[in-house]
C-alpha cells in the first residue's frame, strides 16, 4: 500500500473520493473538465467515509422503508436533502443515483482504486467510471473482492496486485492510510488539496481553478457551475 503525505503530491491537485458518496460521483466530471482545461494532472485518492460516526446509520428494505436506524431527526433531514440534491444535479447530466439500502463498506473499492492507479491514469479512470456508475445503479457489490477484481480486469488492468495485497494484510495497511488521511484533517469528499490547502465539495472548483491558473484576478466564490 502506498505511504503518502495526505496533503502533498507530485501532481498539483489531489482529489479524494469515496465511491459511496453521490457528491463525489457528481464531482468527477467537472473536476476532469477543470484539470483538462488547465492541462493539470490529478492525483486521485480514496477516502473511505465512516458515515455512522457523524451522520448515524440506517438500513432500508428494497422498497425504501426504514427497517433499522440510529439517526436523529436532524441527521435524517440532512441525509434526505443530500440525496435529493445529488439526484437533481445528476438527472441534468443523465447520471443515475439510486437510493442505497445501507451504508456500504467501500474499503475494497478504495483498495481497487489504488491498484488501478498503480497501473496508469487510463486504467484508473476506467475503473472509477465503472465502479461509480454501477454502484449508483445498485448493480455492484463493492464488498465482494471478486467483484472488485473483475472490475479491475474490465478496466483493462491487472487484478493480481489487488488480490496479492488483500492476501497479505492489505486491508490493515489501507485502514492505516485512511487514519493518516483523517488525521491530516481530511474528513469529507470530494476533497481537494491544492497548495497544501484542503477544500471539501465541488463548489470549490471555481476557486481551485483560479489557484491552479495562477490566482489572476479576483478570487471566485463557491458555486456549482458549468465548466466547458
Amino acid at each position, binding site marked *: 500500500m502506498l505511504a503518502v503525505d495526505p496533503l502533498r503530491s507530485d501532481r498539483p491537485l489531489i482529489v479524494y473520493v469515496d465511491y459511496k458518496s453521490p457528491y463525489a460521483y457528481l464531482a468527477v466530471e467537472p473536476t476532469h*473538465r477543470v484539470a483538462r482545461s488547465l492541462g493539470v494532472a490529478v492525483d486521485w485518492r480514496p477516502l473511505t467515509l465512516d458515515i455512522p*460516526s457523524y451522520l448515524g446509520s440506517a438500513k432500508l428494505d428494497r422498497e425504501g422503508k426504514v427497517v433499522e436506524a440510529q439517526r436523529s431527526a436532524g441527521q435524517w433531514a440532512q441525509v434526505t436533502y443530500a440525496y435529493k440534491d445529488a439526484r437533481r444535479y445528476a438527472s441534468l447530466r443523465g447520471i443515475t443515483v439510486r437510493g442505497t439500502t445501507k451504508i456500504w463498506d467501500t474499503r475494497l473499492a478504495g483498495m481497487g482504486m489504488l491498484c488501478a492507479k498503480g497501473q496508469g491514469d487510463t486504467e484508473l479512470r476506467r475503473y472509477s467510471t465503472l465502479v461509480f456508475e454501477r454502484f449508483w445503479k445498485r448493480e455492484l457489490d463493492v464488498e465482494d473482492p471478486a467483484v472488485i477484481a473483475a472490475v479491475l480486469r474490465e478496466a483493462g488492468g491487472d487484478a493480481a496486485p489487488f488480490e496479492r495485497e488483500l492476501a497479505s494484510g492489505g486491508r490493515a495497511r489501507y485502514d492505516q492510510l485512511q487514519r493518516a488521511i483523517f488525521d491530516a484533517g481530511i474528513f469529507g469528499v470530494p476533497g481537494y488539496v491544492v497548495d497544501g490547502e484542503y477544500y471539501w465539495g465541488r463548489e470549490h472548483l471555481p476557486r481551485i481553478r483560479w489557484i491552479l491558473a495562477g490566482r489572476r484576478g479576483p478570487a471566485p466564490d463557491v458555486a456549482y457551475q458549468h465548466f466547458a
Partner: protein
Amino acid sequence: MIAVCVDFKSPHSYLAFEPTRALERRLGIDFAWWPLVLPALPRPKPASPGDDRGARHRRARAEYLARDIARYAEARGLALGDVHRDVDTTLPAQALLFLRQTASERAGAFCARVFELVWKENANPADTSAIEAALGSASGGFRAYLERDAARELAENARALAEAGVWSVPAYLVDGDVFIGRQHLPMLEWLATGRAGEPPL
C-alpha cells in the same frame, strides 16, 4: 418566486447575502426573505484523549468550516471576527416577519442593515431600539406585534420551514424545492431564466 431563508448570526447567510442580492438585481425580481433562527455555528471542541471518531470528525469539520468561511470572506475583503458568535437573533427574525406583513418590499434592505449590525458593527441584535432603527419608518406597530403575535408566528414559521425540508441556512426555495447554500445560485439563475444554456454541474 424565490424565497430565501437566513439567520442573521450565520456567517454562511452573511456571505450569501450580497451574491443573492446581486442575483435579485440581475433577475429584476424581489426575493421573499424569511427568517430562521438556528443554533450558532458549532465551535470546535478541544481534543480530549477519549475522543471517538465521531467527536474527532465533528472537530475537524468545525475547524474546516471556520477556515473555509475565513478564506472566502477574505477574498471579499470582509473581516468577520468570531464566526461562532452566538447572539440572539430572535428579535430581528421577528422584525423580518413583521416587515413581510407590513412593507415586504423593504425586507431586503432591512436584512442588509441587520447583517451590517451583526457582522460589521458587532451590535447586539437583541436590542429593540437598534432593530426599530433598522425598520425605519416601517417600525410603527412593531412593539404591539412583539407583544401579540411575534413569538407564535416565528415558531409557526420555523415549523413550516422544517416541514418544507429547510434544515440549514442560507436556504433557497423554488417551486417547493429546497437548495441549501450559496453554491446553488447559478442553478437558481439557470432555473429562473428558463433553463437556457448548459446547466450548472
